[in-house]
């Protein structure tokens, strides 16, 4: 955890006071609804379908047990006893009352939390790899850089009224688990190799990607700089934001994201404008200094790992003896760079649950688990699960036995039912269609764990509208809620992917009704199982190899025919 110092705390406290005063003026009629709007948004407060929605920042997804208990307390005291972990590693409360939001923010400030810039046309919460600091393939610990960016972006006076929202993601490992290619800015932290200009070998720097994004116009970003030495990080961000702030479109909110500017100028011209601006800012006061990086590093608490052996005979024995434990271990336990430790995903995707939702009781229980098993810290993943990042391998079985009754042990990470979904039309006023009932119907349809494991790795992402909060474009299967003459319909795409080989899915054809969706997924799976060249070939690989046509043809024509063997038989074959 990054621990605030006196100044960090003071800024957050003063923000609470500022918003309390703004809310007071709004409620007294001194501020109009239109004037209050940007102010409340920059404090995470939306006015939604049923009630206000408050989005609480969980900077780069890192959370302590103390903070999670506070979130549980807030959910219980000011809301209906649960919260929703979003794809941006934040927590959303769906039922707070506007009058009490300043009190909620004051409670959060007590545990070094806030809702600053979780909404509005400003720089939002920076996201990163949920395995930062523990992944074996890590090159650079991204948390330190995320915190530096958090401080730079917090109350930045020049960039509070951008043309549109602005999201930055940082990855520090070979595998990109932070979706950096579909962000306004994606940063790949890496180390310089011999022969690089302007950098010593081993020095940290960043590949800078701009103009990616999902939403109405999904675009994979463009790398405008292959290696930016760390000391220039903030001045370069200033340069990008400044070009965007000056030239981004403000006449049409659907064309206002930076990706449209990059596309209209072309990435090369955009990059040139950034470099011109940066040539004026370079080596100026925003240039980072080593003292500061060290200071931030030293304010992070670090787990005091014990010296352990890599292999654990007890775990091996339990894996051999207990198939249910083994199946959970295969999917929800992840390698750790320290011998004898593992990272564990607590799945918030059990069958029938709204993806990402957690009750206050679950939060309290998880806070206790984190204290007992993982140094009192946890992370939120952009797949809307919680992670205990530092669990002793010898504790895994005990942990598993504790989380089963809590409904947190569904062994489905990376599988079809680990669905990413936005809150959808049940809660969100932007949505065309509901997401949660669709996710639940699919989870029920694929409730058979053996079948689920046979299908193998598959990302299913659901968004209730074009804003794409459920990241449907980068789902191996993506589902998008659309509105057809007032009816909710669902468009299905396949072939999307996140990570280092990010790609955008293609729509297979006309949209389906809500009832048809599970059936359509089943048919896509049937084609995959019939066509895959081995069990190693994942759904996405098969789509890439044979194209979407066989899938499309089968889905739209198969009501005439019956497959010779059912999918379940194929899977077992």
């Amino acid at each position, binding site marked *: 955890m990054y621990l605030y110092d006196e100044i960090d705390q003071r800024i957050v406290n003063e923000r609470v006071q500022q918003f309390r005063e703004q809310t007071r003026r709004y409620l007294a009629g001194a501020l109009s609804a239109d*004037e209050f709007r940007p*102010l409340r948004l920059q404090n995470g407060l939306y006015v939604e379908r049923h009630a206000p929605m408050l989005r609480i920042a969980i900077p780069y997804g890192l959370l302590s047990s103390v903070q999670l208990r506070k979130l549980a307390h807030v959910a219980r005291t000011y809301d209906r006893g649960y919260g929703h972990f979003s794809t941006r590693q934040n927590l959303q409360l769906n039922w707070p009352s506007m009058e009490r939001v300043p009190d909620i923010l004051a409670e959060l400030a007590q545990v070094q939390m806030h809702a600053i810039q979780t909404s509005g046309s400003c720089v939002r919460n920076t996201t990163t790899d949920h395995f930062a600091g523990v992944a074996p393939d890590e090159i650079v610990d991204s948390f330190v850089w995320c915190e530096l960016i958090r401080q730079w972006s917090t109350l930045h006076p020049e960039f509070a009224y951008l043309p549109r929202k602005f999201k930055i993601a940082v990855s520090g490992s070979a595998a990109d688990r932070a979706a950096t290619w579909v962000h306004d800015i994606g940063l790949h932290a890496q180390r310089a190799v011999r022969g690089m200009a302007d950098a010593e070998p081993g020095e940290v720097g960043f590949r800078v990607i701009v103009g990616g994004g999902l939403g109405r116009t999904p675009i994979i970003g463009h790398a405008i700089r292959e290696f930016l030495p760390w000391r220039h990080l903030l001045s370069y961000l200033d340069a990008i934001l400044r070009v965007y702030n000056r030239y981004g479109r403000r006449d049409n909110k659907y064309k206002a994201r930076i990706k449209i500017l990059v596309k209209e100028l072309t990435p090369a011209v955009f990059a040139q404008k950034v470099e011109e601006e940066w040539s004026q800012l370079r080596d100026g006061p925003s240039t980072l200094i080593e003292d*500061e990086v060290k200071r931030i590093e030293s304010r992070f608490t670090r787990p005091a790992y014990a010296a352990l052996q890599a292999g654990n005979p007890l775990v091996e024995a339990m894996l051999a003896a207990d198939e249910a434990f083994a199946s959970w271990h295969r999917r929800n336990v992840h390698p750790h760079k320290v011998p004898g430790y593992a990272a564990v995903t607590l799945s918030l995707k059990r069958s029938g649950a709204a993806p990402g939702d957690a009750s206050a009781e679950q939060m309290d229980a998880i806070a206790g688990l984190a204290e007992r098993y993982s140094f009192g810290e946890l992370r939120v993943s952009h797949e809307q699960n919680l992670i205990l990042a530092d669990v002793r391998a010898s504790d895994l079985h005990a942990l598993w036995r504790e989380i089963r009754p809590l409904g947190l042990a569904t062994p489905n990470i990376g599988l079809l039912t680990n669905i990413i979904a936005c809150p959808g039309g049940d809660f969100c006023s932007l949505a065309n269609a509901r997401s949660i009932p669709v996710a639940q119907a699919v989870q029920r349809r694929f409730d058979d764990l053996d079948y689920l494991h046979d299908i193998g790795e598959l990302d299913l992402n659901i968004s209730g509208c074009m804003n794409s909060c459920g990241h449907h474009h980068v789902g191996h299967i993506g589902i998008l809620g659309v509105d057809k003459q007032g009816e909710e319909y669902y468009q299905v795409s396949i072939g999307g992917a996140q990570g280092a080989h990010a790609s955008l899915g293609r729509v297979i054809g006309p949209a389906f009704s809500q009832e048809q969706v599970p059936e359509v997924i089943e048919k896509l799976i049937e084609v995959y199982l019939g066509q895959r060249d081995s069990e190693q070939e994942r759904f996405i690989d098969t789509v890439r190899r044979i194209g979407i046509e066989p899938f499309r043809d089968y889905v739209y024509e198969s009501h005439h025919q019956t497959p010779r063997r059912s999918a379940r038989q194929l899977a077992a074959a």
Partner: protein
Amino acid sequence: MSRIIRHRAVVQDNWQLLEQDRAGSLPFAGDVIVPAALWMRERAALSFRLGRIGLWLDTNADPGPLAPDLPRFGVIAVRFASATDGRGYTLARLLRERHAYRGELRAIGEVLHDQLFYLWRCGFDAFALRADQDAQQALAAFDAFSEAYQGSVERPEPLFRRRAQSKAPQRPA
């Protein structure tokens, strides 16, 4: 005459704002703020007037071509057509930091209480608030925060540099 905030105090102001299409009615004396286009077109004539000249910029203005003239203006007024137009903030920093403009920099148009803090940090030192705003009450906005992470016009060194300096050992005298 109107009341504006200048240097964190409410004061009377004598500048007249000249609308674009009223160039013909330019008074011969008195302090006027003229649109940038008019200045570019009639620079010489305007220089013979009695009274000071101020420059009116819209938020999308490019300050580059005006840079050599900047010392001649008694005020530069940046007009916000909307309270959420962020371009004026960048424009102010460019005028102050890149083009070294030292005169009065005034925010006009949709200027509301809650924008003042960031506007001030970006280099504005005068504010003609929208008519319905309570200028006296709005002065509180300047003190909303006692610290800031980033460098800005009013305090160019970012917090991390100031921290590092305060930590550095003192040289013996």
